[in-house]
């Protein structure tokens, strides 16, 4: 019976050519990478409501475009890219819609060293956190991918659609800015 089935289902099977690469179903792809993309959304947004929104928006965009993606594409990098671009564009939109908030936040994060010395470690952490949130979105994305997810620069470069050198520069520049902003308070 099995032989018969194989024989009858055979058109194209017997010519010896390798089977074409077939993309996994969307659900299978999400089973593989969805968890880490969700964690990534959390590290970018730092709260559940925004992480859920970012993750859902990423899923919707990915699902709509999935059929057009080449079967052998790097789905993981593609998902990171959609999530990152969605995050970056949301940030830009927020900035456009509410420039005052940004100005206020910047004022908050750039306390003078004299004032800063009086603050305790908890305040410092909050300020570091707030400063990371105010980094240019590409630097923040690159820093989160490298620092919190331990990704290599090849994946970060693919995500940001830039060279590995530029990806590395984004991460390092983010750290340098933090280092400069908290110069006196971080030196032991």
């Amino acid at each position, binding site marked *: 019976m099995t032989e018969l089935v194989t024989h009858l*289902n055979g058109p194209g099977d017997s010519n010896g050519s390798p089977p074409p690469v077939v993309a996994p*179903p969307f659900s299978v792809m999400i089973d593989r990478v969805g968890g880490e993309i*969700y964690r990534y959304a959390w590290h970018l947004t730092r709260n559940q409501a925004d992480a*859920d929104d970012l993750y859902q928006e990423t899923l919707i965009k990915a699902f709509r475009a999935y059929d057009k993606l080449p079967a052998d594409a790097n789905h993981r990098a593609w998902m990171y890219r959609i999530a990152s671009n969605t995050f970056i564009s949301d940030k830009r939109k927020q900035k456009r819609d509410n420039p005052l908030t940004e100005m206020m936040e910047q004022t908050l994060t750039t306390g003078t060293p004299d004032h800063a010395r009086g603050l305790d470690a908890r305040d410092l952490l909050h300020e570091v956190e707030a400063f990371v949130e105010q980094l240019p979105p590409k630097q923040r994305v690159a820093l989160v991918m490298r620092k919190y997810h331990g990704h290599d620069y090849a994946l970060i470069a693919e995500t940001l659609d830039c060279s590995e050198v530029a990806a590395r*520069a984004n*991460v390092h520049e983010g*750290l340098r800015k933090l280092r400069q902003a908290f110069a006196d308070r971080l030196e032991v």
Partner: protein
Amino acid sequence: MAMNFHTSDNPGFGTERTMTSNHSSSAAYREPSLLELASRPEVDPCDVACDAMPGYVLGDLGKLESAWVHEHAEHCGYCRAQLEAYQSLDSALDTCAAPVTTACSQAKPPSVAQALGLKEARFGFMESILGPLMIATTDTGVCAIDYLEHGDRDSSLRRLEERGILAQEQQQFVQPVIDQLNEYFARKRTKFFLPLDLHGVTPFTRSVLDVANQIGFGQVVTYGCVAIGIGQAGASRAVGNALGRNPVPIVVPCHRVIKSDGSMGWYTGGSHLKHRLLEIEGVRFSSPSVVNQQALEI
């Protein structure tokens, strides 16, 4: 920073590296190592060390490069303070991330199907006398039965996604379907009592399947007969195509529709399976693949 050099995980110094990115020049260039840079008379080694510190704390440097930064900082008070500041910053970032890491490991991601406005389904597998079958059910009913000898799991899942259904593997949910199918294959069941979910099936195909569903166990009718049944006499070819899209074969008995000359016609899992199903139902054949004309209810 005045200097702009690149660090590498490659522990070797002075190795030849080629930029491979599309965004860069394709010309090979020799990237100066930290040591090379630091030994240049016009360069201050402290600048090189400080510039490399972000890479140092993030683990981007090769072993030798790391060792050089470490050693330089050991002997230079200014750079040591800089490095300690970067290390404090690095641990501050770890501390900032800790609550997020904990929270997101406990949080449940939104349902993919809900996020996409798709219907959720569960799928499972069974071995049958017709080969392995994949079965999917939603809360409404059976939405897919696929012959896996004919396709594979992924193609079945993709077909479901095209119908707006996203399925997760959960074998226990399909057990009631497996039970009824097993009874049918053992000739202990002539009718299925299973709700169906034809979500994503076009109205025309649905109307054809409705008519096919009325053909009883052991009966066979022609494509033309089903075309009359849907009120479109002469649409036999369209009926055949619609039956070919039957997502729940066996349960919706599209195998009971054959050509007017008694031959099998096309079947989703191969005409031999159609033949086998009709045999199970006791349909008589005048030759190995042609149904006895008397059996045809035209």
